């Protein structure tokens, strides 16, 4: 535990001090790393803890992003208020999907496909809503990039850097609390065996629904960040299957159901993507697709050779204690 705390402290210090040495490019990469660590952690609540596979998780990113952005663009609602509406929208939709799926016994692959279906449905739906810009996109007016306005989320890139850092730390601490809480144990039980969980007095339906709704709401906050950081939203990006895949890669590559997994996964994958871009450009390949091709190959190698994720493998090498329930020693 203490060694883990040290590791965590070092990581945090590195991120907090990075702006002192890093240029704008590196900072923008670190923002992406933390963003994926954040949404990965949010997704992990549903899959890693409660065992419910969502393959359409970008739905909640998109809903959160669009809700807060539309409120800001059309009504001037500041992000600090809009995020409540964003989370509420995602929680409601997550609740509907969960309730439909779990009530009607849609399980395993079928539930995963249900989540994809909802995300794709919403993508096409949003392309046909003129008020949200349709396929041409929704743009947020770029304000003063020098100041710091946390209420409206307008300002200096460093503000966004520290905001996403705070969010990532926040969700890490939240998840840490959760896995050691009654609710967390309830989820683990449901993940491991629903029948046995029910026999121990756990309301399985409610447990799964809580996980989906909490995960959806937290993911939507990531979406709010995304909208105000990039200032533009397109349905075929915000709701695309590719985004959903990106979201779940970090926690799976890092180690499903672990607290460090999403962070480590994001730390590996985002820089990997950037490195591949740089390497291919340095070698003179300009062709489209080469980067993604290498990315796909790396991914293949990771799932093939470290199927449990990098963190459980690394953890044993560092001699660290398991960090969450569900990581007992074998």
């Amino acid at each position, binding site marked *: 535990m203490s060694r883990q705390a040290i590791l965590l402290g070092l990581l945090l210090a590195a991120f907090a001090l990075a702006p002192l040495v890093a240029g704008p490019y590196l900072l923008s990469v670190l923002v992406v790393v933390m963003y994926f660590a954040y949404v990965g952690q949010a997704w992990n609540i549903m899959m890693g803890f409660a065992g419910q*596979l969502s393959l359409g998780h970008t739905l909640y990113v998109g809903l959160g992003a669009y809700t807060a952005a539309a409120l800001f663009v059309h009504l001037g609602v500041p992000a600090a208020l809009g995020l409540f509406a964003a989370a509420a929208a995602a929680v409601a939709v997550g609740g509907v999907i969960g309730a439909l799926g779990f009530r009607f016994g849609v399980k395993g692959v079928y539930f995963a*496909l249900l989540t*994809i279906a909802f995300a794709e449905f919403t993508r096409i739906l949003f392309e046909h809503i003129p008020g949200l810009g349709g396929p041409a996109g929704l743009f947020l007016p770029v304000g003063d990039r020098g100041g710091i306005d946390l209420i409206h989320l307008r300002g200096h890139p460093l503000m966004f850097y520290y905001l996403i850092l705070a969010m990532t730390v926040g969700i890490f601490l939240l998840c840490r609390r959760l896995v050691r809480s009654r609710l967390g144990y309830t989820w683990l039980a449901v993940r491991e065996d629903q029948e046995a969980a029910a026999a121990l007095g756990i309301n399985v339906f409610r447990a799964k629904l809580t996980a989906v709704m909490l995960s959806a709401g937290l993911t939507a906050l990531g979406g709010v960040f995304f909208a105000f950081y990039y200032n533009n939203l397109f349905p075929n990006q915000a709701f695309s299957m590719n985004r959903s895949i990106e979201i779940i890669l970090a926690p799976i590559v890092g180690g499903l159901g672990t607290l460090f997994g999403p962070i480590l996964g994001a730390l590996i994958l985002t820089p990997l993507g950037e490195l591949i871009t740089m390497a291919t450009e340095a070698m003179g390949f300009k062709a*489209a697709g080469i980067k*993604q091709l290498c990315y*796909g190959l790396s991914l*293949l190698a990771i799932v093939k050779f470290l199927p449990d994720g990098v963190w459980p493998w690394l953890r044993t090498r560092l001699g660290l204690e398991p960090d969450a329930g569900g990581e007992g020693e074998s």
Partner: protein
Amino acid sequence: MTIDLANQIVTGLLTGLVYSLMALGLSVIFGVVRVVNFAHGEMTALAMYAAWMLFTWLELDPLVGLPLIALLLFALGYVMQRGLIDAFVAKPEHMQFILLVAVAIIMVNFSLLVFGPDAHGIQVPYGFDTYEVGPLLVDKVRLLAASAALAISGLLMLFFRRTMTGKAIRACADNLVGARVIGLNVKQLYAVTFGIGSACVGAAGALLSLLIDVMPSSGPELTMLAFIIVIVGGLGSMGGALLGGMLIGVSEVLAGYFLMPSMKGMFSFAILILILVLRPQGLMGARK
């Protein structure tokens, strides 16, 4: 107006039959190997590129090149199962998903690298021929493609009913432990099944290349389409795949006709959601 609509519906039905053949491949693979092939559409796109190459370089009609393409895809599927997927058969679903997504990413970007981002289409000499059936106008290519798809589906059904290998594969699907006990080589049969499912994809890709253009992004779209069709029809049910394909084919043209062509996908996903919730075994699937 009504004639136009009727023409559209016939078009939808015929296109749907070709979709069915592709979806059939997915259904066969899932029914036996129990792995959802998330790279299914990407494989279809590769088959379409193969058809395009044969046509452009050797002036080979896709209908003639079809057996060759099917054979190539059979080999691809066989090797994929043997070398890659087999190790994941007993792993949790999300691992299989990531594995096949990685494969899909590789395939999409491989095509992007080799063929570029533009759409490639095939224009056969009889491309604009039509038959007049009463008041209806039926495209010759579409009719040919649909008939071929139907014939191949029929052959596949015969294969599973009549041949020893087909029966052995069905045994694996029905009772894996039993199949092992009577000494079937499950690994081998899984690879053959993945090969057969991929051969369906190859054939369907060859036929589709007559009807639609192919570009790298076709892959993910076709994957979705295949999912919708098999879930609507019933995963593992061959008749279901045919029905699902025709249904989605028709619903697409109807959505395009009455609403906007860009909304057709929304329509299909809405049908998928309804089926998943109300009848997860699909229209023709057996109740558990």
